């Protein structure tokens, strides 16, 4: 049973590595956050599997900490997204108001 649980942990970790590709490739910020969340849940599963395999008592406590803090980055992400979207929409409204192609910064930006 120990061997099976460890194999399962390796399998979950490998799928987590797949989600890592989504974090790295994006393309949008939402995709990156979703990849991060999949890694979080996969991490919890791998932790439980490996911990049960090695009969470690404290594994479930660590997984509890991980689980309770899982939605945290997402809350901060929502704020980031709102800031960017609000600024972008304000920018667009400004362009409409000015009737000009926007207030391009002198140094050209990105």
């Amino acid at each position, binding site marked *: 049973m120990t061997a099976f649980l460890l194999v399962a942990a390796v*399998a979950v970790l490998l799928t987590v590595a797949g989600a890592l590709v989504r974090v790295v490739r*994006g393309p949008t910020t939402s995709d990156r956050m979703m990849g991060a969340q999949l890694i979080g849940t996969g991490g919890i599963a791998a932790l439980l*599997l490996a911990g049960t395999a090695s009969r470690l008592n404290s594994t*479930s406590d660590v997984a509890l900490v991980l689980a309770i803090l899982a939605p945290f980055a997402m809350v901060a992400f929502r704020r980031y997204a709102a800031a960017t979207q609000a600024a972008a929409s304000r920018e667009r409204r400004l362009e409409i108001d000015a009737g000009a192609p926007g207030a391009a910064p002198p140094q050209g930006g990105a």
Partner: protein
Amino acid sequence: MSVVAALLDGWTVLLVCAGIGFFVAGTTGMLRFPDAATRLHALTKADNLGVGLVVLGLLPQVARPAEGFKLLVIWALVLLASAVSSQLVARVATDGPPIEEDRNGRTAPAASGTPLDRSGSVGAGAQP
């Protein structure tokens, strides 16, 4: 090995395998689906059922009932986090313009014509 123990082990193998199946399916969906909404669909399957089946599968293996209870609480927390995060991501992905990422701290004009990431057009669904 008694029959009961063998049955419990079989239960574990079955459910953990099913859970891994959901993880693999979720990751595949994450990688293959075309936009944020469909990827969210894949993600929730891995979140809710992947962890859930692994937890259910591990239940016969725990040393004490309290550990089993903690496993169930972990599943409940993951469900809650998944539900809330899905809401947030879905709103971000479908409301408003796609979010542009800033590059290396330079001032990036958020003008609509500026392609900031390779994919301003991918993903974000309807732009009202």
